């Protein structure tokens, strides 16, 4: 059934929207990887690069939102198309917040780079790797309409939550042992928190993708 021809220009616009969301997600992926690396390697230059990238993400957020609204007004989308555009509007919100958190991690990295390290960072980079994978999988699911990948994300989110609690407990113990470490330890807890929040937002994205495909709203948390 070659119905695709009857709404060719609309289909092209939908494709464009999807590509833009993908690009936005890729930038955030870079920000995420870069900020954790900057923290671990105490790389101020890298942190600055990451901080600059946040403007790009904000720009994408605005243009994609405008594009979606225009499509809603002008194309009268129904069913699947409508769900996709609605999902798109929510997803860019979540991705934009992820970008903000990555920005915060980069700022923390700059701060900590000027101070003596508290300990070897193990769990935070581990969290970083998992969250990166989650983000990558969610973008893949979005582009390929793959609902199966979503359930992986829910499991990984639980992992990240567990790791966050471990980091927090570790830092609390550290502060109790030597109060002078408090400033640096608290920054690290915050970084772990940012990563945990990013993971939450990725789960939101997963829920939206599932809705886009099936029309059902299912809580993943």
């Amino acid at each position, binding site marked *: *059934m*070659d*119905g*695709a021809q*009857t*709404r060719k220009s*609309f289909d092209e616009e939908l494709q464009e929207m999807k590509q833009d969301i993908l690009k936005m997600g890729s930038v955030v992926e870079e920000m995420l990887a870069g900020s954790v690396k900057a923290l671990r390697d105490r790389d101020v230059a890298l942190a600055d690069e990451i901080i600059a990238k946040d403007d790009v993400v904000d720009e994408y957020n605005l243009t994609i939102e405008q594009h979606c609204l225009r499509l809603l007004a002008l194309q*009268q*989308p*129904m*069913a*699947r*198309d*409508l*769900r996709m555009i609605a999902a798109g509007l929510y997803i860019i919100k979540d991705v934009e917040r992820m970008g903000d958190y990555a920005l915060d991690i980069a700022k923390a990295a700059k701060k900590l780079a000027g101070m003596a390290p508290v300990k070897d960072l193990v769990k935070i980079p581990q969290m970083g790797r998992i969250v990166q994978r989650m983000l990558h999988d969610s973008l893949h699911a979005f582009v390929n309409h793959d609902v199966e990948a979503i359930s992986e994300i829910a499991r990984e989110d639980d992992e990240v939550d567990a790791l966050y609690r471990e980091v927090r407990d570790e830092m609390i113990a550290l502060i109790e042992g030597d109060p002078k470490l408090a400033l640096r330890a608290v920054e690290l807890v915050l970084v772990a928190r940012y990563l945990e929040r990013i993971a939450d937002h990725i789960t939101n994205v997963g829920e939206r993708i599932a809705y886009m495909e*099936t*029309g*059902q709203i299912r809580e993943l948390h």
Partner: protein
Amino acid sequence: MVTGVPNSISVRDFNVWYGDLHALTNVSIEIPFRDITALIGPSGCGKSTFLRGINRMNDLIPSARSTGEIWIGDRNITAPGTDVVELRKDVGMVFQRPNPFPKSIFDNVAYGPRVHGTTDRSRLSAIVEGSLKRAAIWDEVKDVLHKSAFELSGGQQQRLCIARALAVEPQVMLMDEPASALDPISTLKIEELMHELKKDITIVIVTHNMQQAARVSSFTGFFLSGELIEFDESSVIFTRPHDKRTEDYVTGRFG
């Protein structure tokens, strides 16, 4: 079916042939009373044929033949011996092109009651006024009731036709693309009207305009090649239909 379903128009295995052409195949549906149901589908899918089955207007076509049952509440209107004239008093119809009679506005609306035996002038005046008010056109015509109906604009003529149909106090109103020949403002006025009317009347509307169906109806049925493919709440049909054919149609990707 032994008996109808209360508070709905129940259709069971309804088939219509025009000569050898099988226009409607085994349509079964339950249309709830006092609400608006839209019938959508591409040209030639049978939705108008189905609509005309409800007030037995298909009987007027010599080659038409039908099987199956249609119940309105607890009355089987497809039973042989049904008084079709009485039925059409109870089930009104509004057509695609406004078709007022070449008479005055008053006489147009009074036509139905007169034909059914009302002759008292004051009673007729009351009915005419009431119907024109219900059709949201009273204020525009109350001073010119004696004028020819043809002096009205297209949108006004269609509301006049609605008033004319309302004058015989129907329980059901069938609308066959009532706004397709009208400008957007008139269309919206008629949609507003439908919202008001549905408080007492069951409305079934056939429309090509999907946005109109989405705006106006609580339930929607999708027809294709003489079959009813899907029937559900409009919010479902237009956001997450179950059948792929329905989705292809509502998203405009019909091959």
